[in-house]
């Protein structure tokens, strides 16, 4: 384990009223890893995710990304440091074309301000176009670039969200339940796609509710239950961990092994 640590979370907690949604979680992600984060419904996965990406401020603890403490930063500042995310419940820009959706990621990362708009900014525009097309090619949506995003099928919208995140050229890509709502064939295809991104050197954190996808592609799996991290190991070790089995017992005991 010599690779540089990209993300380091230390003693992170967040309480909502009396409920400790995330309770003293410490974890790290190194460059080039494909890490899974799983847990039963209500385990605090999405809260942890929102704490990391700046959407929710933590009650205590620190988040260090690429050597910088990022708690307290706004989501757009976190994004500009190279962390890109997708959303659990598909948040595309429905009344914009597929191309324009993805271009927003490139605009956010490269910047295209008022002065570029007024005075041309032709070079910057070329750069944004190129990056947008590259992201569209990568997810296979280049052929429908001119369509309104609202007209895409559910499965394609998932890839649209991923393309938009890729257009920011992220150092760390966090996918929030990308397999939700997909059938088995589509999930298998998504698994191949994520593995492909990883093989190109991408660092990915995959947050999932269902264990199947995570166990099949991740190198390391963290398990969250009732807001606390109860396991952090290779998939095989996690599957054998009695604490994990207990957390999942009665929730998903026949689909936990892929």
């Amino acid at each position, binding site marked *: 384990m010599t690779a540089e640590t990209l993300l380091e979370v230390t003693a992170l907690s967040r309480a909502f009223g009396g409920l400790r949604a995330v309770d003293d979680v410490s974890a790290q992600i190194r460059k080039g890893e494909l890490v899974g984060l799983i847990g039963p419904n209500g385990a605090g996965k999405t809260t942890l995710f929102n704490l990391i*990406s700046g*959407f929710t401020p933590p009650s205590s603890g620190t988040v260090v990304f690429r050597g910088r403490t990022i708690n307290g930063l*706004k*989501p*757009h500042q976190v*994004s*500009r440091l190279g962390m*890109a*995310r997708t*959303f659990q419940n598909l*948040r*595309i*820009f*429905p*009344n*914009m*074309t*597929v*191309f*324009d*959706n993805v*271009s*927003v*990621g*490139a*605009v*956010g*990362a490269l910047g*295209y*301000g*008022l002065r*570029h*708009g*007024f005075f*041309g*900014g*032709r070079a*910057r*525009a070329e750069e*944004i*176009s*190129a990056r*947008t*097309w590259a992201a569209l090619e990568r997810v296979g949506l*280049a*052929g429908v*670039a*001119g369509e*309104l995003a609202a007209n895409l099928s559910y499965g394609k919208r998932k890839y649209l969200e991923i393309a*938009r*995140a890729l257009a*920011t050229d992220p150092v760390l890509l966090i996918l929030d339940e990308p397999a939700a709502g997909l059938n088995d064939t589509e999930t298998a295809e998504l698994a191949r796609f994520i593995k492909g991104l990883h093989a190109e050197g991408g660092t990915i954190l995959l947050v999932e509710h269902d264990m199947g996808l995570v166990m099949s592609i991740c190198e390391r799996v963290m398990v969250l239950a009732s807001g606390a991290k109860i396991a952090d190991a290779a998939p095989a070790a996690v599957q054998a961990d009695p604490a994990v089995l207990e957390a999942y017992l009665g929730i998903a005991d026949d689909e936990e092994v892929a």
Partner: protein
Amino acid sequence: MVANASRVSVAARWLGLAALLFGLIPALLAAIGGGYPFQVAITALIFVTLAVSLNLVTGTAGLLSLGHAGFFGVGAYAAALASTKLGWPFPLTLPLAAVAAAVVGVLVALPTMRLISIYFAVATLGIGEMIHVALLNWVSFTRGPMGIRAIPPIEVLGLDLSGVVGGYYAAAAVAAAGIFAVHRLTHSYYGNALRSLREDDQCAAAMGLNPVRLKIEAFGVSCAIAGAAGAVYAHTASFISPDSFRFEESILILAMIVVGGLGSLPGAVVGAVLLIVLPEALRGIGDFRMIAVGVFMFLSILFQPKGLLGEASAIALFRRQLGAAWRGDIQAGWK
């Protein structure tokens, strides 16, 4: 090169638009005869400018503003006061009006930008009315309900534009500049950033855009253009009073962009012309102006919610016209 050819055609199209605005339309108006058609055309152009500016914040960036007439009023009063009290000529009062409206706009925008959707709408209604109350009651500065009289007509570098025809050219020039500025912003990646805020501002923030900053910029630019329209109004009408800058005017401007198509630049122009010229045409049977405005607005919300010229088709048109395709086969990019 293809790029050069497209650039030539872009220039040709803008020239065509200029020829229409400065040649064909005034010729037609002159043919109809008298000063009255020019008077209507000046009003239409002022409202085109206002509708185009409101469309930037409300149509493109998705901030429903119900107080736009307030910023129009700030511009008009700035120009009127500077010209009557300080003797400033139009070339100075025009930028002054734009800057004054933008400053007021940004000041009120700073604290209200956090509000979303209808809460922002209601806050802008409150702010628009506050501006009206201030214009009405700050008598020592604005002369209150008496208004400001004898605002000098437009003169640009010795060129006398005092008549209705001259006023038309000045209003047309300001409208064209407003259209051009909003066109530059909305038909570019900056426009994509603003549209993404309208669609989902949290998601846009996750892509690295700073929603608050973008909204304030858009609001400031929009108010500046509305302020410039105010200067044109003050100098062409020669008399202004607070009653021209009320909630009703804000709604009229909003109705124009709703009818034309929220987010659509040509839609804003068409909507403004329609809602000014049509009631004038109906004058023979009585003053149905605001009734017509309400009916138009209602029908278009119900039956044509995307407006006469919807945003998507308007944008597609501009992409094609400007030859901005990054690739020949799919016309998706912006230059």
